[in-house]
């Protein structure tokens, strides 16, 4: 996967010690998560979560799966830029972005199992006699599973390089173009389908988010989030490993992100106006407040990195990345939980707030991502090689 057409620094392991404060904290959080999951898998969802009939899914689905997989769109967004729009100069960003995606999606795929009431039947969806091919869930499940496999293959050159499997790498390179194409189509399919699940829920979802265009919203924000995550991740990696930031790449990337973001905001508000749903945003309700927090977060990057000079400041790029990630989180939270009410007009009074064990499992999932990222970047060739390495 190392650039064949553009001369770049080949990726190299960062090196350094795997035992430090960050990995220790991650390890503890993961241990807590495993303990909670053990209870969950033996005694059922009711034993650890606050889920009920009105809210059959909570933060495990919304955060670990829906938001987790949206955060993991960096790989797809950057790959699209590099391979579809032939912007080869972004190539050094591909592998780190892909790594984050790989973790995000693999954990999202595993995270779904936590939320399945009868989890031992999870294989049914892949079994022709059991699966229902007309279901949105089926599309999402099969598509995400396929994408996880594709991504591991896309990323496998990093392992082949590490273990010196030159033959395997050469063979894989021949079919890589196909995997890259699949790796671009599949996420577009299921990121929009995640939005379609809102459409399926009908009147139970507040009109601020219940729209036929929500699949498009989810798709556009997934792409934007992908770039936002790359900004965030590059800045954090540079800060944590004391490396130089690829400002010459992030700066134009941020510009592209703002462009797509502008398109999204036009689509979002155009849709609200056409449907006449905008007045709902001015009612004194929690949903309206959540809507404005989401909207302000989507607008924030224009204020933070609107000017070319601001885009040269890594601190501002980082903040813009955080703002976009927060906005994407809010959109999904709002559509799936805050703007969602089962009992609309019929059976009110359903409540949901995640329990402590639920929260700790989600925290643990992110801890796995961080720990995995640290281990792989320190031991496998992912980040671009640097002349002076001061890893510790």
């Amino acid at each position, binding site marked *: 996967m190392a650039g064949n057409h553009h001369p770049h620094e080949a990726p190299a392991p960062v090196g350094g010690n795997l035992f430090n404060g960050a990995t220790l904290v991650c390890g503890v959080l993961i241990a807590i998560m495993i303990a909670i999951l053990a209870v969950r898998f033996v005694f059922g969802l009711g034993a650890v979560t*606050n*889920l*009920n*009939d*009105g*809210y059959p899914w909570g933060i495990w689905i919304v955060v670990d799966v829906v938001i987790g997989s949206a955060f993991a769109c960096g790989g797809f967004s950057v790959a699209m830029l590099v391979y579809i729009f032939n912007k080869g100069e972004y190539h050094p960003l591909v592998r780190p972005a892909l790594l984050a995606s790989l973790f995000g999606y693999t954990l999202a795929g595993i995270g779904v199992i936590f939320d399945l009431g009868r989890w031992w039947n999870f294989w049914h969806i892949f079994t022709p006699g059991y699966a229902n091919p007309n279901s949105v869930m089926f599309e999402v499940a099969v598509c995400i599973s396929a994408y996880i496999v594709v991504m591991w293959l896309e990323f496998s050159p990093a392992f082949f390089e590490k273990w010196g499997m030159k033959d395997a790498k050469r063979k894989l390179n021949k079919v890589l173009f196909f995997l890259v194409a699949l790796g671009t189509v599949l996420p577009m399919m299921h990121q929009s389908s995640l939005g379609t699940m809102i459409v399926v829920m009908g009147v139970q979802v507040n009109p601020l988010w219940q729209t036929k265009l929500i699949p498009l919203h989810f798709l556009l924000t997934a792409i934007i989030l992908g770039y936002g995550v790359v900004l965030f991740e590059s*800045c*954090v990696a*540079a*800060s944590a490993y004391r490396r130089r*930031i690829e400002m010459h790449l992030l700066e134009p990337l941020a510009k592209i992100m703002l462009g797509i973001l502008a398109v999204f905001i036009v689509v979002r508000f155009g849709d609200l106006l056409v449907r006449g749903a905008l007045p709902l945003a001015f009612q004194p309700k929690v949903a309206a407040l959540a809507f404005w927090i989401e909207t302000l977060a989507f607008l924030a990057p224009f204020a933070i990195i609107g000017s070319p000079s601001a885009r040269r*400041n*890594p*601190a501002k790029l*980082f*903040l813009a990345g*955080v703002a976009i990630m927060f906005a994407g989180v809010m959109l999904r939270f709002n559509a799936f939980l805050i703007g969602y009410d089962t009992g609309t007009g019929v059976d009110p*009074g*359903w*409540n*949901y*707030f*995640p*329990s*402590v064990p*639920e*929260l*700790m499992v989600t*925290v643990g999932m992110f801890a796995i991502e961080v720990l995995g990222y640290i281990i792989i970047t320190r031991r496998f060739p992912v980040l671009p090689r640097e002349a002076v390495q001061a890893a510790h």
Partner: protein
Amino acid sequence: MANTSLLSLELNDKIAAAAERLQMSRREFLQFCAALATTLGLPQGADAAVAEAVATKKRPSVIWLHFQECTGCTESMLRAEHPTLEKLILDIISLDYHETLFAAAGHQIEAARRTAMKANAGKYVLVVEGAIPTKDGGIYCKIGGQTAIEMLKECAKDAAAIIAIGSCSSWGGMPSTDPNPTGAVGANKIITDKPVVTIPGCPPNPYNFLSTVVHFLTFGALPEIDALGRPKFAYSRLVHENCERRAHFDAGRFAMEFGDDGHRKGYCLYKLGCKGPETYANCPTVLFGDAGGGTWPVGCGHPCIGCTEQGVGFQKPIHMVAKLKNIEPPLQYPRIIEEKGTGATLGSAAVLAAVAGAAAGAGAMVAKNLGLSHQAEQAEEAKKAGEKAQV
């Protein structure tokens, strides 16, 4: 080859004649035949074959014997809710001997039986109603000087098919209840060299009898039977399986005594002793006794007594809880009133706040570091630019 298209029979004269004979409209007659074919579980097209057979085939001669019984089987057939049912039965068969229905009596009727048997040897259908006493040489039931055993054996010898109607002739029924003073048994204990189709029930649904006869008429053979001789189309499912109250059983909602709240609401009658879980019969689908819409015992609020099942009906006390044959009640039942969830607790809000705080703090630190290094870089660049300018 039997006809398989009901449409082709629309203008058939023989169908019209049969309908007229039965005082039905042609439409009702065809619908009735289709319903019969469906009851039998026959494939598509069989309805036409049934209609054609009923309309055109020569009526089989039937010898109907009565032994230890109450004549309920005959009664229920003659008093069926559908007024045409008995007409149809009496139309499709030639009833040559039936003690209840015949005007003749004594030696006259016995002579009629022997004549019919001789004339239709090897072709007539033998229907047995009532149990056969075996104790003391079978002396507890005699007709015209013959014991039931002798009479049954005599009639069965040249019969084309033998149908035992009702629980008594199927497995002994009510007369065989402990201590069984007459040693009553079913017909298949006496006739062991020929297959005996049993249609248990007290009384059995006339539809099940009629369907069996129509099957014989249409295809020249009796329907498929199980190990106990029962036609599979009627007795392969437990009453419990298709019961209209089954959802209440699964949800754990039971009537605990007659007239209580659950009983009034139509809950499951299992705890009142309903034998549905151990009784094979099609009562929930065709309704017991053809007594009219919804008026089968369970539909009326009385537990099934298991009348079709040997060892259950008349044997187990009516209110004794049934043995569950193919279903285990769940250990846990869903709640009737679901918990609607609570809001944030102190602990969960605190954890969420801590996570948010940690993320915000870490973000701020990273931003600060990045900002500082940016400032330093810019200062350095400015310094270099200044040095260049000086040079």
